[in-house]
Every structure is written in C-alpha cells, then in structure tokens.
C-alpha cells in the first residue's frame, strides 16, 4: 500500500495547508475507515520456518488465535531443508556425557567472540535462556533427535549441539506443523504478503497475494487481511535475492549459488523497510566456501570436503596447480576458490580430490558419488581428461605434494600437514564453488521482538520480527546450530510481548 502511504502524506499536507495541523487526525481516520478488509484475524505470522512455527504454536497455547501465511507450496521455509543442528546448553544428552559446566552464558560467550564486537549480548542471552524450553517443546511434539548424540561444532567451546535424526530441520518443522494443525493454528500456503496497511507506525493488516505460485508474480489475486493483534515477520533471510545481496555486498557475485530454499528472497524485509522499519548489518552475509556447483541447496559437499580438506588437495583445473592451504579459514579459501576463472570470467570450478581406497564405505563418499556430485576416477589421466586439466602439470603437482607429505612441510601455502596423506589413485573428485548461506543482517528489534522505527528509533506498533529476518543479533558471524535455537526460542518471547502490548 505505497499508494495509501503517499495518499495519507498528501492528504495530511493539503489539510495542513488549508486549516492547520489540527485537521490531520480526522483526515487520517477517514481514509482508514474506508479500508475494506476481505478478512479479519487476530495474530498474523508471515513465514513457517522454525520461528513462524514456534511463535504460532506458543501464541496459540497462550490463547491467541493464529494465522500463518506461507508464500511457497510447502511448509517450513529454509528451516525445512537446513542441516538440523540445534545448540542446547544443559540438554539431557550433554549432561549424560558428563558435561555439567555448560550454561546459556557459556554459549553467549562463544557467540560474542564470533560476533566480533557486533553482537547483541542481551538478546543472545534471552534466546539462550529459552533453549531448554524450546528443546522440550520439540520432544513433546514428537521430534526425534539422534540418540546419544551431542557434539562440539565450530566456534563452540563445549559439546552442546544435538542433531535431528532425519539430519534436517524438517524433523522439527514437520512435527510443529502437525502439532499446530491439531491445536487449531490456521496455516495457509501460497499466500504471499505484498504490502502492509499502516496507520502511522501501527500495522493494521496486510495485502496478500492469495494463490501465489512462486516465482510467478502475476499469479493469484490480492486480498486485504486485517490483523487485530499484530503481525509477526518470521519470513527469513534474503540470501536468494541476487539483486539485494549484491547491493549490500558486491563481493557476492552472481556466480555464487545459495544453500537456501528458492523463496529466501526477503521481500517482507523490504516491505517493512518501506514502511519505516530500521535495517541493520545488511552486508553481513555468511558464505560457505564448501559449496558444490553440482548439487542444489546445502547438499553433501560440506561433509565430503571434511575429508577432502584434510586428505586431499584443491587444484585449479585451468593450471593443474594447487590454489590454497586447504585447511585455511572460510574467507581465505573463498577468495582463492573464486579467483579460479576461465578467460571469459566464468567460474573454473576448483577440483578437490583424495584417495578413494582410504574411505571405502564412508557414507559421506557413497551418497556423493550416488547423487553425481562427486566422481570416482581411476587415475590422474582419467581425472585430467574428464575435467580438462593440463595432465603434465597435474602430475607434477601431485608428485610435489607427495614429497611435501613425506617432509611434513608445505612450502607453497604453509598448510598444517599432520592430517595429510600421499595421493595415489583411484581418487574421489568433486568440484567446489562458494555458496551464500545466511543473512546476519535484517530488521532491528527491541529485546521483546518489536520492530524498531527508523525515524523515531522506538518500537513500531504491533509489528514484530524474529529469526533470520532480524539483524544485529549475531554480529559478524552466526555460529552453527544457533539459527534453529534462535527461531524456536523467540517463539517463547514474542507471545508474551503481544500479550503485554494488548
């Protein structure tokens, strides 16, 4: 409703000119009363991932009637396809493992280090303190986690990450959805929010494209839904919005694919900004250097490369030479990988390969080969032929490498050699190219989840946001297993805020 906004401004301006400021309010009220609603609901939640599901179930249990709008043809957003890691300090498996010195504060300490001075400690603390209730909600909904499994993942100082049995966040979103349906939450697929209807900085309702068929923008038809108790933005990140991500971070060139579901395009974020919401940290976008161009989504590549970075080498197919310290950090590796280009600037996907016979029967390898994102190659000749690598140089690269392994020294990139092995065929080969993964930036909220107004820096009325759509929580880097935690935890906070605001 940009029209409505500009109309309000115009009518206010005209009224002010004619009879002074006192007439603005009546003019305002008149236009609002003329808004025709197709439907009225209480609480409207936009998005059906971890955040949307948890807010829906918990608000509904708190006696608030809930309607969830999902623009795609499936429930769950990106959470449904995520890796299924969930950080829970003091979870029962952790305690059974004898780890008794963990706490929400310990988790926040790790997150604040990763945030590099840009995180929100108070917010992270509120979230971490809801980890156990969120875990219990999952268990009660029938969610299955891997038995006796609780490990330490990147950036955490303790083993506190549990994982879904199914290996994906869908293990949670499917069960919360089924619980929500049983308990009376109203879910609607193919409902895309096109605009907000505002009264000043209070949200009254939304304009929705009902019957939307992603990504076709002229499908469905527009309806106006009044949301009496407010609107919760749980619409996720914008990693799939090529134009927006390139504007905020020009290093994310169009050759970079994305781990996210196709609908992670962030238009609800932009609509909120258009109506005065304050965005922060929009350029802080997490990229994984472990992506593969030969599969969609997050895929198998990261797990496969957990072998490759240690037991193999990464080679530029145009030169046949190694490109980096394969064990270096994400930024270093991303830069080295993305520098591999053909003459026309198109990606020359680097090849990572290791010895096939050292990893026979390893699921990380067998599923990758089965799904044709990795290949078994008998020899360097076969490898060079398939990927068009100069064979002579490839041979000398491998010979040199094998000498480095014997010497335990990598004079080219100074890689730590303790896990390196000599390379001899047959090999397992895959191609790598970074993928955009997670948006740390988004809408600024207060600690209770109210969206902040960019003009007053005070909370907007009845407009709430949580999860990846928000920004400023994780600072420079969100740690693994913490997106699931954040979304589920905020479901315990937002309903209280809505009740307090009523």
């Amino acid at each position, binding site marked *: 409703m940009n029209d409505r906004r500009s109309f309000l401004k115009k009518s206010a301006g005209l009224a002010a000119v004619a009879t002074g400021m006192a007439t603005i309010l009546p003019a305002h009220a008149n236009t609002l009363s003329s808004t025709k609603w197709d439907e009225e609901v209480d609480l409207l939640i936009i998005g059906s991932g971890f955040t949307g599901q948890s807010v829906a179930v918990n608000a509904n249990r708190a006696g608030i009637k809930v309607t969830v709008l999902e623009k795609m043809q*499936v429930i769950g957003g990106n959470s449904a396809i995520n890796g299924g890691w969930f950080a829970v300090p003091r979870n029962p498996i952790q305690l059974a493992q004898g780890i008794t010195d963990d706490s929400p504060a310990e988790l926040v300490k790790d997150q604040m280090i990763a945030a590099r001075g840009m995180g929100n400690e108070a917010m992270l603390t509120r979230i971490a303190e809801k980890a156990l209730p969120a875990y219990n909600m999952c268990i009660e909904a029938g969610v299955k986690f891997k038995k006796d499994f609780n490990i330490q993942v990147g950036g955490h100082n303790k083993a506190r990450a549990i994982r879904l049995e*199914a290996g994906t966040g869908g293990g949670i*979103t*499917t069960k919360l959805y089924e619980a929500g349906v049983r308990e009376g939450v109203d879910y609607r697929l193919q409902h895309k929010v096109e605009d907000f209807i505002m009264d000043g900085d209070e949200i009254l309702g939304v304009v929705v494209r009902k019957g939307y068929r992603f990504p076709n923008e002229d499908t469905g038809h527009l309806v106006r839904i009044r949301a009496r108790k407010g609107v919760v933005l749980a619409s996720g990140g914008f990693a799939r919005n090529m134009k927006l991500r390139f504007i905020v971070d020009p290093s994310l060139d169009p050759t970079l694919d994305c781990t996210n579901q196709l609908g992670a395009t962030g238009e609800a974020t932009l609509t909120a900004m258009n109506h005065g919401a304050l965005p922060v940290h929009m350029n802080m976008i997490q990229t994984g250097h472990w992506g593969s161009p030969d599969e*969609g989504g997050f895929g198998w590549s990261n797990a496969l490369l957990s072998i490759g970075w240690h037991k193999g080498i990464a080679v530029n197919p145009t030169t046949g030479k190694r490109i980096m310290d394969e064990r270096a950090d994400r930024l270093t590796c991303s830069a080295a990988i993305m520098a591999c280009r053909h003459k026309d600037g198109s990606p020359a996907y680097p090849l990572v390969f290791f010895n096939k016979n050292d990893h026979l029967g390893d699921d990380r390898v067998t599923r990758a080969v089965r799904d044709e994102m990795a290949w078994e190659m008998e020899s360097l000749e076969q490898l060079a032929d398939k990927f068009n690598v100069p064979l002579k140089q490839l041979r000398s690269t491998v010979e040199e490498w094998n000498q480095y392994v014997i010497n335990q020294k990598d004079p080219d990139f100074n890689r730590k050699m303790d896990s390196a092995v000599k390379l001899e065929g047959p090999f397992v080969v895959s191609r790598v190219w970074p993928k955009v993964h997670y948006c740390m930036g988004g809408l600024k909220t207060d600690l209770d989840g109210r969206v902040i107004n960019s003009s007053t820096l005070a909370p907007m009325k009845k407009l709430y946001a949580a999860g990846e759509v928000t920004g400023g929580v994780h600072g420079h880097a969100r740690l693994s297993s913490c997106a699931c935690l954040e979304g589920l935890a905020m479901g315990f906070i937002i309903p209280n805020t809505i009740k307090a605001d009523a």
Partner: protein
Amino acid sequence: MKKIIFIISVVFIMVGYANAGDLVDIKNGIKGRVNHEALYESGCNGCHVGSAREYVDDSACKDCHGSINDIEIDVSQLKMSSANPHESVHYNQGASCIACHAEHQTKKPVCSECHRTWFEEM
C-alpha cells in the same frame, strides 16, 4: 467422488493406451491428466471453484485421492526408501500436492531443487 474414481478407472482400462497420470490433450488446447478425463466433462468446475484462473487448493485433489501420507506410490521406483516424497523428512504433511504435481503441464517436484538426480519431471 469415489464413484468418479471408479468411472475413471473403467475408462482408463477401456482406453488402455496411456498410463494413469500421463499428460494428454483434453480440448481447446488444454492439456490434462488422462485419468482425469471424466472430470473435464463438466468443464473446469470439477476442480476450480468459479473462474479457472482462481486459486485451487489441495481439496480438489484430496477429495478423491486422500491425503499425502495415505496415497500409495510405487516404492520400487524410488532412488532409496528414504526418498519417499509422500513421507518427506522435510515437509511430510506440510507439502501441497502442487509442490510436485501439476495438472495442465509437466512439473519438476520441489525435492529436485536439491536432489537433482532423484526425481523426474512428471
């Protein structure tokens, strides 16, 4: 609706040249599934309510076929047993029929966005 299924089955057996679910010309350039031919007898309103351009929700499918977990599929055709799209670990009951199926054109199932080698366009 059960009666319609019976009629469709009989028609299908009699025609015998196409597999259930095959996309065929129905009329006026509109394509449809061969096992739905009887539904087209009454125009578009067998599935669409009001205008054919309007939103069709899953009830148009579920009234005859049942809900996703109850619809049996030929599991021998699956890449592996865990790749059953009617019992998906990602979506399960949260998947709309039209996330994978289309009536008037072929469609790639939503799963194939990531699992590129598991499913064929239907």
